[in-house]
C-alpha cells in the first residue's frame, strides 16, 4: 500500500542509535556555537529562521537514521537534502552561495534519483517497503538485477557521501554554508549517507560476491587520494576542510570495503572488526571535523577572510581558537595520543588482518590498501601542518589578521565541547570499541565472539591508549625535568628571527601556503596539471618594473567529466528549442490535438 502514513515505522537498533549519537555529538556543540557566530552578522529574524532550519535539518537526519521503512527513509532523505539546500544558500546576496547551492541541489537529486530507482526495484520484488520484508525477498532477485541494484545504491549514497567522482558539490557547498551548518553537514550528513549504504546495501541486500567489496575499496582509494591532493593545494580554509572530508570518507570506506570482502569470504569475525573500525572513524571524524569547521568559522568571524594567504599570527591574537584548531589538526592527522590515531590504527590492523587471513592475490591487494592509507595519512598530516602553520603561526599577512580578536564565549564553548570529546574518545577507546563491535555485529552477522580481555586485540597487536598516552606524558614531563636538572633554570632572550642581514622581517618574507605545497604540486603534476603564467613588464632589458606570477591547477573532474556532460545537455536543449514556439496558442493546440487524437484512437480500436 503506497501511502505515507501507513509506511512510517521506526526502529532503534544499535546501528541507528550509533548514528543518532554521531548526529547529536556534532549538532549540539554547533548549535551552541551558532549563537555567538550569528549574532552581530544577521538580524534576529534571520537568526530565528536559520536556527529553526538547522533544527529541522537535524531532526530530518535523525528521521533518516531511525526509519525502518524504505518510503519513510526516502521521504526523510529528501527533506534533509532540501533543508540543507536552503541552509547552504542562506547568504543569498552572495552569488557564490547561490551557485554552490545549485550544484549541490542538482548532485543530490541525481543521487536521490538513483536511490529511488533502487527502492522501486526492491519494491517490485518485495511488494512492500518495510526493511524486514525486503530483506526476506532479496534472494528472489536475479543476480544481474542485484548487481545493478548495488551499483545504483552505491552511486546514490556515494553522491551524498562525497565519493569520487561524485564529490564535486562538497567543495562548493561546504565553504558557502555558515560555519556551524558546514560542521553539521560534514560531520553528520555525509555520514548519514554511509548509514544508508551500510543499512541497505549491506544489511538488506547482503554481499554475494567479493567483487563488490573490491569495487568499494578501489573507489575508496581514489576518493582518499583525490580528496587529500586537492586539499593540499587549497587556499580557502573551508574548501580545504571540505576536501579533507572527502578523504576521510575514503578512509571510512576502506574499513567498510574490507568488511564487505571479508563478509563475502565468510570471515565474519574479521569483517565485524573491519566494519567496527570504519564506524569508529565515522564517530571520530564527526568530532574532529566538526571542531575544525567551527575553528575555521571563528577565524572567518574574527578576520573576515577564509584565505590562508591572508591569515597568520593568529595564535597570539586568538589563543583559544588556535589551541582548539591545533588539537583538531593533530587529531585529523592521525597522531597519537588522540582519537584519529585510534581509528587509523584500527583500520590499518583490520586491513592487515584481512591480508593475513585471505589467500593469494587478495593478500597483496590488502597490503596495497594499507600502503594507500599510509600515503593518505602522510599527506593529511602535511595538509594540516600547512593549514595550522600558515594560518596561525608567524606574522600576520594582512591588516585584518593583525586586528583579529578572540571569539565570544559561546563559540569557544562549542569548540571546547568537541575538544573534550576528542579526549574522551581517545581515552575511552576500549569501551567504545566494544560498543562498535556490537553495532557492527548487527551488520555483519556471524556468531558472537567474546571481545577479549578488555583491550583492543587485533591481529596479535593490542592498542591500549591510556598506557601509550600515559607513557608519552610521563616521558614528556621526565624529559623536561631532566633537562631542567642538567642545565639549570632557563636562560632565554628574545631576539629577532634570523633575517640574513636584511634588517627587518615582514610578513612578505614568510613562506606562503602556495609555496608550502609546491613540492606536491610539482611531484604530482600528472594529476594536478599545473599551469604557470608569468608576466613581466620591462622598462629595459635589465630592469623589470612589474612581475606577475600566476599558477593554477586544472580541476580534472570538473573539466573532463562534468563539463562535457553539462555541455551535452545544453546542446540537446538547443536542438529541442525548435518545439518551443513561444506562443500559447500552439501549446494549447498541442494539447487539443492530443485530446482529439486519443478519442479517435479509442474509437478506431
Amino acid at each position: 500500500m503506497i501511502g505515507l502514513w501507513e509506511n512510517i515505522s521506526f526502529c532503534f537498533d544499535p546501528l541507528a542509535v550509533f548514528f543518532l549519537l554521531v548526529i547529536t555529538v556534532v549538532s549540539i556543540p554547533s548549535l551552541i556555537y551558532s549563537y555567538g557566530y550569528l549574532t552581530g552578522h544577521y538580524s534576529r529574524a534571520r537568526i530565528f529562521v536559520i536556527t529553526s532550519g538547522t533544527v529541522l535539518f537535524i531532526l530530518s537526519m535523525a528521521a533518516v537514521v531511525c526509519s525502518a521503512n524504505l518510503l519513510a527513509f526516502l521521504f526523510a532523505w529528501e527533506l534533509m537534502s532540501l533543508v540543507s539546500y536552503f541552509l547552504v544558500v542562506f547568504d543569498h546576496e552572495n552569488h557564490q552561495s547561490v551557485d554552490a547551492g545549485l550544484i549541490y541541489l542538482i548532485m543530490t537529486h541525481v543521487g536521490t534519483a538513483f536511490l529511488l530507482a533502487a527502492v522501486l526495484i526492491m519494491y517490485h520484488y518485495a511488494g512492500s517497503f518495510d526493511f524486514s520484508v525486503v530483506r526476506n525477498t532479496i534472494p528472489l532477485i536475479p543476480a544481474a538485477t542485484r548487481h545493478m541494484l548495488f551499483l545504483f545504491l552505491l552511486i546514490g549514497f556515494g553522491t551524498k557521501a562525497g565519493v569520487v567522482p561524485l564529490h564535486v558539490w562538497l567543495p562548493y557547498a561546504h565553504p558557502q554554508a555558515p560555519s556551524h551548518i558546514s560542521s553539521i553537514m560534514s560531520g553528520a550528513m555525509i555520514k548519514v549517507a554511509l548509514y544508508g549504504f551500510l543499512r541497505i546495501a549491506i544489511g538488506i541486500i547482503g554481499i554475494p560476491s567479493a567483487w563488490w567489496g573490491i569495487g568499494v575499496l578501489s573507489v575508496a582509494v581514489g576518493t582518499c587520494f583525490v580528496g587529500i591532493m586537492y586539499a593540499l593545494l587549497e587556499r580557502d580554509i573551508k574548501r580545504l576542510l571540505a576536501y579533507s572530508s572527502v578523504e576521510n570518507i575514503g578512509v571510512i570506506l576502506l574499513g567498510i570495503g574490507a568488511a564487505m570482502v571479508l563478509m563475502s569470504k565468510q570471515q565474519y569475525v574479521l569483517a565485524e572488526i573491519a566494519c567496527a573500525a570504519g564506524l569508529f572513524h565515522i564517530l571520530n571524524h564527526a568530532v574532529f571535523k566538526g571542531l575544525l569547521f567551527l575553528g575555521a568559522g571563528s577565524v572567518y568571524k574574527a578576520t573576515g577572510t577564509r584565505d590562508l594567504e591572508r591569515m597568520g599570527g593568529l595564535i597570539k591574537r586568538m589563543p583559544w581558537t588556535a589551541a582548539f584548531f591545533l588539537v583538531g589538526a593533530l587529531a585529523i592527522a592521525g597522531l597519537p595520543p588522540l582519537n584519529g590515531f585510534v581509528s587509523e590504527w584500527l583500520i590499518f590492523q583490520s586491513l592487515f588482518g584481512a591480508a593475513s587471513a585471505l589467500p593469494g592475490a587478495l593478500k597483496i591487494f590488502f597490503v596495497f590498501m594499507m600502503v594507500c592509507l599510509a600515503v593518505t595519512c602522510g599527506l593529511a598530516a602535511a595538509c594540516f601542518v600547512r593549514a595550522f602553520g600558515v594560518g596561525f603561526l608567524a606574522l600576520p599577512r594582512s591588516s585584518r589578521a593583525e586586528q583579529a580578536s578572540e571569539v565570544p564565549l559561546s563559540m569557544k564553548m562549542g569548540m571546547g565541547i568537541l575538544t573534550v570529546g576528542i579526549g574522551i574518545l581517545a581515552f575511552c577507546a576500549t569501551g567504545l570499541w566494544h560498543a562498535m563491535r556490537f553495532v557492527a555485529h548487527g551488520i555483519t552477522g556471524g556468531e558472537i565472539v567474546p571481545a577479549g580481555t578488555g583491550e583492543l586485540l587485533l591481529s596479535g597487536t593490542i592498542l591500549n591508549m591510556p598506557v601509550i598516552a600515559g607513557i608519552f606524558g610521563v616521558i614528556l614531563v621526565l624529559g623536561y625535568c631532566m633537562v631542567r636538572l642538567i642545565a639549570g633554570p632557563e636562560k632565554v632572550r628574545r631576539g629577532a628571527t634570523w633575517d640574513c642581514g636584511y634588517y627587518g622581517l615582514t610578513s612578505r618574507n614568510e613562506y606562503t601556503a602556495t609555496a608550502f605545497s609546491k613540492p606536491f604540486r610539482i611531484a604530482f603534476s600528472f594529476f594536478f596539471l599545473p599551469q604557470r603564467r608569468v608576466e613581466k613588464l620591462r622598462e629595459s632589458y635589465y630592469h623589470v618594473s612589474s612581475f606577475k606570477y600566476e599558477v593554477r591547477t586544472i580541476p580534472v573532474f570538473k573539466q573532463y567529466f562534468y563539463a562535457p556532460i553539462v555541455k551535452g545537455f545544453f546542446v540537446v536543449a538547443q536542438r529541442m528549442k525548435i518545439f518551443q514556439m513561444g506562443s500559447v496558442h500552439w501549446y494549447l493546440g498541442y494539447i487539443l490535438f492530443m485530446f482529439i487524437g486519443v478519442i479517435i484512437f479509442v474509437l478506431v480500436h
Partner: protein
Amino acid sequence: MIYAFLLGMMMFAYSMVITRRVTALIRSFRLQSLFLALVTFAFAYREKSIEVCIVAGLLVVIKVVGIPYYLTRLLKGIKIDEPLGLFMNPLLSLVMAIIFTFVSSLFGAMLLRHQDPLILVSLIAAMTTLFIGFFIMVFRIKAVTQIVGLLTMENGIFLLAAAITDGMPFFVEIAIFFDVFVCVIITGIFLYRINRLFTHIEVNRLTELRG
C-alpha cells in the same frame, strides 16, 4: 425537459464559437452556465438530493452572476476594443464544432451502449462543451478568451462527471468552485497588468518574449 435544457446549453456553446465580439462571448457563456445550472437542478429534483441542489445554486452564483460580472468590469477597466481576434473564421469554427459533436456521439454510443439515453445526450453535450472551450482557447487571439475557454471546459467536465457518475463528492465540488473563482480573479489581475505593460492583451504577440 432536461433534454431541452441540454439542447439550450449546446446552442449557447455553438454561439460562443461563432461570435466576433468579446461582450457577446461573455453573454453566451453566462447563458450557457444558466442552462447548465437548470440541468443540474433537474438532476437534483430527480434524485431528491439536497447536495446537488446546493451545487447547482453555487453554479448560478459563481458562474452565472459572479464571474461574468467580474469579467465585464475587467474589460471596462482595460478598455479593449470589441473584436475578438480570430485565427479561424466563424463558419469554419462552427463546422469543426459540429464535426466534433458527431465524433463524440459515436464515441458515446460506443461507450454507453446499454445505458439510459439521457446519459448519452448528456455525454455528447458535455464533450461538445469541452471541445468548444478548448477550441476557443487555441484559436482566438485575445487573452480574455483563454479565461472563458477554461471556464467552459470546466462546465463540460462538470456535466460529464454529473452525468456518467453520480457526481463528484460534495466537498470536491465546493473546492473546485472556489478554485475556479480564485483562478479567474488572479488571471484577471494578470490581464490587467499585461495590458498595463504591453498595452494589448493579444497573446500571440507575447512570442516576442521567447528566450
